[in-house]
């Protein structure tokens, strides 16, 4: 029995070290698969999430510099006349993601960050180009991150429809951003496809 227990504890320590807890997500997203193997950037990035009901959420990754959050919310507060209180602006730092139009931003930030997951968020309006509020969010993030390499992550649910994705891309395009990273789950390269043959014949350093 002793070796058995030894192995069990070995496995236990492996899982304890290997586990990485997921950050809180507003909604469950099933990402599609792709053959690309580039890891996800986790800092200095903006993530635009599209859930399966085509709702759009906006979140900011900036672990090193929380000042970015303050700057974005302050700028939006003055430009959009949101009348946010100081407490509401502090709450924005801990807000996992925003999925409300500007008109309801005050009521979302009025809720404590831990309870925000219970708030029903209708999604940021994007479909109409005249009221595409995502354009504002992106331009604010751009100015707050100025000087740093900001990455744009688009995390779409496999079931979301193409027009929403197109609207998100057009919001990015209107801010003159043309490079995005689509979040996907890894998948094997099909055997004997052109990419597979290329990967096998080319030396690793030539792939870039």
């Amino acid at each position, binding site marked *: 029995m002793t070796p058995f227990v030894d192995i*069990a504890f070995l496995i*236990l320590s492996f899982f304890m070290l290997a586990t990485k807890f997921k950050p809180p997500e507003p909604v469950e997203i099933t990402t599609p698969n792709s053959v690309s193997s580039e890891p996800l950037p986790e800092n200095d990035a903006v993530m635009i999430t599209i859930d399966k009901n085509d709702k759009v959420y906006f979140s900011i990754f900036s672990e090193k510099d929380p000042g970015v959050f303050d700057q974005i919310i302050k700028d939006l507060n003055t430009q959009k006349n949101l009348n946010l209180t100081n407490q509401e602006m502090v709450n924005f730092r801990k807000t996992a993601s925003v999925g409300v139009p500007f008109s309801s931003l005050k009521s979302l930030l009025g809720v404590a960050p831990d309870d925000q997951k219970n708030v029903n968020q209708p999604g940021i309006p994007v479909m109409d180009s005249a009221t595409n509020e995502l354009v504002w969010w992106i331009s604010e993030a751009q100015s707050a991150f100025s000087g740093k390499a900001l990455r744009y992550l688009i995390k779409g649910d496999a079931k979301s429809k193409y027009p929403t*994705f197109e609207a998100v891309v057009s919001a990015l395009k209107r801010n003159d951003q043309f490079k*995005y990273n689509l979040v996907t789950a890894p998948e094997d390269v099909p055997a004997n496809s052109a990419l597979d043959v290329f990967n096998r014949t080319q030396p690793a350093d030539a792939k870039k």
Partner: protein
Amino acid sequence: MASIDTGGGDSGHKKGPGVKKAKKLSTRVDMTPMVDLGFLLITFFIFTTTMSSPTTMDLNMPKDTNKDEELNKTKESGALTVLLGKGDQVYYYEGQLLPDASNFKQTTFKGIRDEIISKKKSVISAYRTDADCEAKAREKGRPVSDCAEQDFVVVIKPDKEATYKNTVDILDEMTINRVKRFAMVKILDVEQQLINVTEANAGIK
């Protein structure tokens, strides 16, 4: 059971007659609860751990422009237009869409790969040496063989009912088949109507 053997009990010292052995308390520790807890934690970590971390796929979009000189020109012979419809259906045609739509075909995501491969092959076999392009390729240190497929362009047009998964899948197909030139373009009304008619006929929901 797993337990620490402290070597208590008979330690081998012979005491003389009449010397009473001091009663020793057992130092054996019952390890069962600890092992129980260990397995509980194993199950917990096995269920919560996520092994495959998400990856990202690069996507570069061109700037919207109406200036003629900034637009990329495509040779009709090298173009393959792929339309994405609802129910994971794929429609495609080569070159221009004929007025009677006779070259408008239907397939699935499994079939489109073969179409892309065969179109790429036919474009490469129709290639006549382009000295300008090959000179440029040599200058930049790229393989000359890239010139053979320079005319091959895949035009991707997802319709309103196509899902995000379909879009990622077709972009992935571009990576898998090493298609260097592809574009995402808004679907035309004619094409949307053709898809609608085909879907109605085939009963795709």
